[in-house]
């Protein structure tokens, strides 16, 4: 798989170029033209790599330019996957990339247990509180982070747990981006036989992702659920947007236009990214 020109490794970029099917077909990922990386890509690709590694087949990676590769080094990408991947360059020569401006960012983190969800949330709360974010902004990020991590750990049955990353950056103003991904069974698979899905006749993956955001909808019991909805309320209060990709469903939630579902290449697991403008 080769990119024709430079591109941004965002969730959308991942969606259009790195579908799970393509990865499994080619056995190689070409990142050589990547110019910009966001957390949604980083955690999404990490989950896809885990899926690939389950097949016990080597995955080749064509690395991006050094600036971008150093950023990946800074985010501990190679530390996480060092020996599972075959690189076209020596990654040990990369120096750790510096932060852009005063933007706080977290390393790529893996979470496997509920205790780790609490610990990572504490770490990220402390990290973000050191930045120039208001209390509300920090808490919105931590709501998204903690609720989706908990969903991944409890519901997803992901063999690798969940990956998460947070970054603040400047693009048309200050922004913060929170991303969580897992390599589990995905939201559609957990809800396709839920009585609400059956009674409402919801069968598309996008529709099932929207259903997951409804308070009280949980695979476990009617007393559970609510985490996704809480995260969405946080996104709405922060005038942000949240994108969820699972199975063949791709849904963008925003306070302005509501939910917009599309069909996408299959993502084996769930990848969620929320973005807020900062004051």
């Amino acid at each position: 798989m080769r990119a024709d020109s430079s591109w941004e490794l965002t969730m959308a970029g991942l969606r259009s170029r790195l579908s799970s099917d393509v990865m499994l077909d080619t056995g190689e990922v070409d990142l050589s033209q990547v110019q910009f990386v966001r957390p949604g890509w980083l955690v999404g690709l990490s989950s896809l790599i885990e899926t690939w590694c389950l097949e016990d087949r080597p995955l080749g990676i064509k690395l991006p330019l050094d600036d971008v590769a150093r950023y990946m080094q800074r985010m501990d990408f190679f530390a996480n996957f060092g020996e599972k991947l075959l690189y076209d360059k020596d990654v040990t020569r990369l120096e750790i990339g510096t932060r852009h401006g005063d933007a706080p960012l977290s390393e790529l983190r893996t979470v496997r247990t509920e205790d780790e969800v609490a610990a990572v949330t504490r770490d990220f709360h402390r990290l973000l509180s050191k930045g120039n974010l208001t209390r509300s902004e920090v808490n919105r990020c931590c709501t998204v982070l903690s609720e989706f991590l908990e969903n991944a750990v409890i519901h997803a049955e992901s063999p690798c747990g969940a990956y998460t990353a947070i970054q603040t950056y400047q693009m048309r103003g200050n922004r913060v981006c929170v991303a969580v991904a897992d390599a589990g069974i995905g939201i559609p698979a957990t809800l396709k036989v839920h009585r609400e899905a059956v009674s409402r006749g919801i069968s598309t993956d996008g529709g099932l992702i929207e259903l997951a955001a409804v308070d009280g909808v949980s695979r476990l019991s009617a007393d559970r659920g609510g985490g996704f909805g809480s995260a969405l309320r946080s996104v709405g209060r922060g005038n942000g947007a949240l994108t969820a990709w699972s199975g063949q469903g791709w849904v963008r939630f925003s306070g302005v236009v509501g939910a917009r579902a599309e069909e996408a290449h299959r993502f084996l697991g769930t990848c969620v990214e929320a973005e807020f403008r900062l004051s």
Partner: protein
Amino acid sequence: MTTLSSPAVDLSVLDDVVPLPEGDISGGVLAGRKGGGAERTRLKQVLMSYGPGSVLGVDVRAAHFMNFSFADECFGVLMQELYGGEAENRYMVLIVSPDEQEDILEEIQVSLERKKLAMFYAGNPKGLGELSIVGELPDYLVHTLESIQPGDTNETLAERLNIKLTTCSNRTDRLARLRLLRKKRRHGNLGYKQFEFSPVLPLAEVSL
């Protein structure tokens, strides 16, 4: 959230005020059902260590962050258990800074609202203060709660509210199960059973 129009109450009579989180381990960041469940168990143990009639303050003012899952597992499930009859005749008041902890209060609100439950909250655990309600409490129950005077029976309350006795009885029963009202059984003048009601916390000023 609903602020009661009742006179101020005396919060100094709280039997205990338990901080949540306890200690510095969590750094005031409360996330996840597992942590919420552990805190619920702790709160219930403390509540049960006091006798019937006691009122426990749960002070969350040191919390910087609480997510929905924690709030639901801690306060949502706890109030559900109390509504179901556990920790009989024991009461709870949440101590929270409504202005600075609006987000925390909202997570508790959503959890209780979904379960059709409610609990008291106040901004300070000492001295005189106003009680408010977090969760779901229909207007007619709010009105009933605000009208309660110490020693009321269903008969006296029904007459004051100008409603049927059975309607009044249903309302006071629900308020008592929600632990928003004290309910004490006594024998009436003619020997039949009768319930006597009083506010959970004593009113600072009682208008007669």
